[in-house]
């Protein structure tokens, strides 16, 4: 298993006739997704718009998104991986263990119908949310859904995309990838990038209390981290750059108010499909931008004696 078969959102708008949301609630979390990209638009090859598309929602509870769906499949909590694996088997016409099906909360007929719809689709897409990728099974659930989509390409056109959100998280991924090779969980303490999710990822680092300072930009971990992590951020010198007061800024040692990117500061934001969009500020702000602050911190740090590995011989001779 491995890999990712995906597309840009315009492909969905122009072609998709089967749209599956799995473990997400776009009606509340990505409120423009239906209207701009997936359900409502008249696409180049879906001229009838909503009528030309079938939407399936898979989740453990009935969220407001279910109203928009043609088919809502409520599965038992923690059974995503099993359902996905059964679907993979059904797509390939393999034998199914009926007791495994019974545990998922869905009937075999329902699953067979979904597998048949997937194979019959002209262009199918699965969007998966944190209800899949952050619940029991975690990255194995993501791998299962990505593999299902990849395998469907033996029968028809099928793609898959995570429903990313929280500001410009995709942009952060992209920049880290081209500068360090890794999307997150990157450790530069040896002077070059190392990657080890679980060891260097932010939540693990902070919950263990490994770091002795924190600079937080464009995030509010004080609202989402486990309590031991929040406690640790309150103990160490934490610096927050944010236009507004947040849970994190309240527990920080220093909060620098910055201009809001996209409203009063220019920049680039990446969509969930990794397409960059330019941001043009509509207003002026009395506050400096994130970029200005970081540049000034860098200049101040550069003025101090270097500790980097490359500079050690120079210091030894001095």
């Amino acid at each position, binding site marked *: 298993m*491995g*890999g*990712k*078969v*995906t*597309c*840009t*959102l*315009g*492909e969905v*708008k*122009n*072609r998709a006739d089967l749209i599956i949301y799995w473990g997400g609630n776009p009606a509340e979390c990505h409120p423009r997704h239906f209207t*701009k*990209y997936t359900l409502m638009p008249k696409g*180049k090859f879906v001229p009838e718009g909503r009528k030309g598309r079938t939407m399936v929602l898979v989740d453990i509870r009935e969220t407001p998104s279910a109203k928009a769906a043609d088919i809502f499949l409520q599965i038992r909590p923690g059974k995503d991986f099993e359902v996905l694996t059964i679907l993979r088997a059904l797509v390939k016409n393999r034998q199914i263990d009926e007791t495994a099906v019974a545990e998922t909360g869905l009937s075999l007929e329902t699953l067979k119908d979904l597998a048949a719809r997937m194979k019959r689709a*002209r*262009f199918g897409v699965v969007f998966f949310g944190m209800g899949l990728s952050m619940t029991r099974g975690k990255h194995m659930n993501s791998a299962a859904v990505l593999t299902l989509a*990849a395998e469907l*390409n*033996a029968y*028809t*056109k099928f*793609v898959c995309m995570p429903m990313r959100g929280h500001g410009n998280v995709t942009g952060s*991924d*992209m*920049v880290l*990838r*081209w*500068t*360090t*090779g*890794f*999307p997150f969980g990157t450790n*530069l303490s*040896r*002077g*070059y*990038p190392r*990657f080890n999710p679980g060891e260097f990822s932010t939540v693990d680092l902070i919950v263990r209390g490994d770091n002795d300072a924190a600079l937080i930009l464009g995030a509010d971990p004080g609202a989402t981290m486990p309590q031991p992590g929040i406690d640790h951020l309150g103990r160490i010198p934490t610096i927050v750059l944010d236009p507004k007061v947040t849970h994190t800024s309240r527990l920080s040692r220093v909060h620098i108010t910055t201009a809001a990117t996209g409203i009063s500061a220019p920049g*680039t934001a*990446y969509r969930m499909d*990794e*397409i*960059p*969009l*330019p941001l043009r500020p509509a207003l002026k702000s009395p506050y400096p931008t994130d970029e200005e602050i970081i540049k000034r911190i860098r200049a101040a740090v*550069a003025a101090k004696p*270097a500790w*980097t*590995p*490359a*500079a050690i011989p120079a210091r030894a001779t001095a």
Partner: protein
Amino acid sequence: MLRIAGGRVYDPANGIDGVVQDLCIDGGRVVGDVHGGRSIDASGMVILPGGVDIHTHVAGAALNFARGLTPENYRKAVPFLHGPERRAGLGGITPTTFATGYLYAAMGWTTVNEAAVPILSARHTHEELRDTPVVDKASLVLMANNEIVLDLLEADELEQAREVVAWLIWAAKCYGVKAVNPGGVAAWKWGKNASNLHEPIEGYSRVTPAKIIAGLAQIVDDLRLPHPLHIHCNNLGIPGNISTTLETMRVLDGHRAHLAHLQFHAYGGDGWGTMRSEASTLADYFNAHTSFSCDAGAILFGDAMTITADGPWQHLLHQLTGRKWGNVDVENETGCGIVPYVYKGHNLVNAVQWAAGLELLLLIKDPWRIFLTTDHPNGAGFWRYPELIRLLMDVEHRRDCLKKLPKRALRRTVLADLDRKYTLSDIAVVTSAGPARALGLTAKGHLGVGADADLAIYAQGPDGISFGRPRYVIKEGQVVVEDGEVRPASEGREFLVRPSYDEKIEEYLRPLFQKVYTMSFDNYPVEMERLTRPDVRACE
């Protein structure tokens, strides 16, 4: 000011073949004479113009996708430690941007051409190119599966298509036009491919790959772009694709064209079991038709990362190898596929591929028309070019390597019979002078007065020249590599063109755009301010 004294200069563009002479540099360019400034004693050393990579994939959404897809590859990559004036990074088969600039420079290459830019994410490509230090950069925009252009070809509106292409090149801030698997990637949007050049592609009744190829070649010539149409032929990698490649050249007859990574298009046979090299057939045709240039796209055994806009081929490769598969279809424009790959010497197909790349480099007689590439990172990492140079210059070494291949493979190649040996001057042509000329970069690839002062100085040891480790590398007159250490240097330039078009074309594009794209028309063109040191070249 800089004087390089007493080096043996190889400057084939100016007919200089191993002449000991001083080179003088001022203001980033080669000049007739200088008084004062630094002097480098290059006596006993060899001087070549800085390398020009005409076809490489070093920046952009596809490469960044590959980086994220294979973090495990970096475990054995060369780390670059950050210092006061150097950025951290990792080498390996898909190096990070800063490492890419350092690795090219450390090898003596000073100009690179990023060969595949989707317009929708061109802004991203330029961000990465800005973070690729030292080297100068050019880039090619993907056009042969752009549905706005294909729709115009369907309606036989070639003039309108030319206006659209010109507008798109400027929107992407690119230097030239690339055609990848013409029509095949558009068909892939429906899970199909385009394998016959004369059959209409999926979703169209009159557009065939041949029509796209001929149309784009005409448009590129009409727009007088400095670099001809850069084409990745249909049926890449497939046994028997020689017929497609020859037919592509027939379709292109009368136009300029650059055929990319020709090795991947030089196969006979009708399946993996019968695959053989048809490099000699291809070279015969190529030798007789002088309006074409090509690059080798040679493979070397070891790790590779196949990254191409050729989506259907990548699906096939994923099915063949069972390895990870990345795919991104880009709305209305193109797609890309990614599959990690390892070329193995004992594998029959890989052995034939290895031989075919070298055969093309040896059988195409005019070094000014075939250039050294590995289609990085598809055939091998660019940092392995010195291995290829050795294989071309040292016949004994080549024969030794050939002996290690499976016997069955030897019957499918003529490499054992070839005893051509590249001279240093030939190497200067295929790595620098030739690709610079094919790109239309007049100040690159030579060391005459007025040329950009980009050059590499190699020490000559008892075992010959160590091409992987130049003694000095000069870029725009600055010493950027000395004693194997990359030194901080100014950022490289970005070359682009501004082909002429009627502004009214925007009235045609705007409503169409709002209908089929998900980005607004005004956000689509890359702003000039995003490029560092842009250098707009004339279309003459």
